[in-house]
């Protein structure tokens, strides 16, 4: 059976990350997954990411118990299920972090920072915890859904980054040091560069890393970017995958089709889906989701402007037109035969099937497209049987063309 050996190292790193959060005396900042992590690190904050907790609640299916608790206090189950699962877990005072990493609860925040470049939901989610912990909440609110990111947008966002400094200094009790910011940005850039190369190994056939595996191996790029640890990890992972490319060892022995996954993972059904595709020798080789942590634009020479550009230019913050161009390029580069659009019922921000995109993509590229309904955490929105028939029909369409 195909296994990625670096997984052992990954487990170790993630365990250390969480035990550092538990045992350290440093101030803790909560941050959105595509928020200003590098700036926070430059002040010496340990950075914790509530979305990572949301994904863990989804993957362990614990979310199914905690979502209803959030509904009871006015956060209905049709809004972001990361938010509802996470708030429910706080109400229930129970977390899978205990079993997996020995933490009885997420670390108490000293500062909470969001960036609405992904959605407005994070603002309300984080504000709930601001109230609960009596903790200051700050945010970056960039212009959204852009065709192109203009200089005025960069100036706007970079001044919002700068406006965070006094609060960060007050809470961390450290003066802002631009060299430290440059340093964490450089580490982040190098790590995201390696992460990109990791994902690009699957341009090869047989591909050495699937979308499903990548959702696990992306842990460090989300929670540890801006540190040496993330950088070192991706060196190890990349070198293993590159060897597999040379030896033509892939996660499938034979690839009958190559699939692109658009949208969020269905955390509680990763294994089911991965096995379903494997049964049909179909390789899910690329995704919008895993690509979200590639930040080509970071540049330590202009740390504020380049952070503003990198975090505003992300896929989720772009117009339908810009998204279509990105998808078309990825389809070409990864030699994709079919695109699955996961319509996550509680996250329209990360679901791109609702404004005619699947049809447009099929017309313009000739690849088959399919929408499956589901969710990141709330499995009541996902029907295994119906999704299986749809996916198998898509694969039949591909094989008969």
């Amino acid at each position, binding site marked *: 059976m195909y296994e990625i050996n670096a997984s052992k190292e990954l487990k170790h790193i993630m365990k250390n990350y969480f035990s550092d959060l538990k045992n350290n005396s440093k101030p803790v900042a909560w941050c959105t997954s595509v928020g200003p992590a590098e700036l926070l690190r430059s002040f010496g904050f340990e950075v914790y990411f509530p979305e990572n907790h949301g994904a863990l609640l989804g993957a362990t299916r614990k979310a199914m118990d905690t979502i209803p608790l959030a509904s009871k206090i006015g956060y209905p189950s049709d809004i972001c299920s990361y938010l509802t699962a996470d708030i429910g877990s706080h109400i229930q005072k129970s977390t899978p972090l205990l079993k997996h990493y020995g933490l009885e609860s997420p670390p108490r925040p000293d500062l909470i920072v969001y960036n609405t470049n992904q959605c407005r939901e994070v603002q309300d989610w984080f504000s709930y915890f601001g109230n609960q912990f009596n903790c200051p909440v700050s945010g970056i609110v960039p212009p959204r859904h852009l065709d192109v990111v203009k200089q005025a947008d960069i100036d706007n966002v970079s001044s919002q980054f700068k406006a965070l400094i006094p609060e960060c200094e007050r809470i961390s009790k450290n003066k802002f040091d631009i060299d430290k910011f440059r340093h964490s940005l450089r580490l982040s850039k190098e790590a995201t560069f390696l992460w990109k190369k990791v994902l690009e190994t699957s341009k090869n056939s047989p591909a050495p890393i699937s979308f499903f595996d990548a959702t696990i191996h992306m842990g460090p790029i989300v929670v540890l970017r801006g540190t040496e640890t993330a950088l070192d990890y991706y060196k190890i992972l990349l070198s293993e995958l590159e060897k597999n490319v040379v030896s033509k060892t892939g996660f499938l022995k034979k690839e009958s089709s190559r699939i692109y996954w658009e949208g969020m993972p269905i955390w509680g059904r990763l294994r089911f889906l991965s096995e379903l595709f494997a049964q049909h020798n179909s390789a899910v080789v690329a995704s919008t989701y895993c690509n979200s942590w590639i930040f080509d634009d970071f540049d330590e020479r202009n740390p504020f402007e380049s952070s503003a550009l990198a975090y505003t230019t992300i896929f989720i913050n772009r117009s339908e037109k810009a998204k279509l161009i990105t998808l078309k390029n990825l389809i070409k580069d990864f030699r994709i035969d079919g695109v699955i659009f996961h319509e996550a019922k509680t996250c329209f921000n990360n679901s791109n099937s609702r404004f005619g995109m699947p049809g447009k993509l099929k017309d313009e590229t000739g690849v088959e497209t399919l929408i*499956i*309904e589901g969710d990141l955490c709330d499995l009541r*929105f996902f*029907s295994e*049987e*119906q*999704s299986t*028939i*749809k996916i*198998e*029909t898509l694969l*039949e*369409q591909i094989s*008969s*063309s």
Partner: protein
Amino acid sequence: MHFLGVDIGSLYTKLLIIDYDFKVLYSDIFKTLARNNKRDDILSKLIKEYIIDYSCSTGYGRKLMKSADIVKTELYCASAGVTQLAPFEKTIIDIGGEDIKLLKSAANAKVIDFYMNSKCAAGTGAFITEVAERAELDVADMSRLAANSKSIKELNSFCTVFAKTEIMKWIFDDTSDEDLAKGIYISIANRIQKIPADNSLPVFLIGGVAHYHPYLKDILEEKFNIKVTIPENPQLINAFGAACIARNSFVNK
């Protein structure tokens, strides 16, 4: 040469055997329920009796038939079955017990596009049965009743349970059985009409619901403004398609 198609649906299992010339030699329908299942016995008897060269299974339980040479989804079998009878581009609407499938099928049987309801039973066989039961209508008599109605009233609710509440209100308002039956059919046609489909193509209506509720064809013709065909034995089309796929795969092997 003999080819077997097996469609293991959520309510009924359908079996069908064809020869090299696509002539149907045998067909059977029985309940799918897993308890006291006679499927495996019937299958082994048939395979012996007819000397089956190749077989294909389909339907919700398609992976249950261990001896099948190939397994295909219902959508591909529907397309293969209807294309054998109508070798041109068309829309196929398959209304089953628990889902609706709508597909655009090419002249060579390729599925060009498809749509399935994913999460609820609105507009399916189960919907008709539930709502008709609440309205105390005999399901077998509904098409005859609806044909005698001039009403254009429809159920608005998407949800089967709410549709049942809605129909109670109609009963309190002394709505006739004819109008109740027609209202149920109109609401199904409306749901189908909202599915993105190419309305310029000829439409084929298949599945168990088409068999028991032929009036749906009239309603759909009115709504789509196009000719709708219900093939003979519409509930057997997917099994027939499976047999055709078995035959074609065997011949082209």
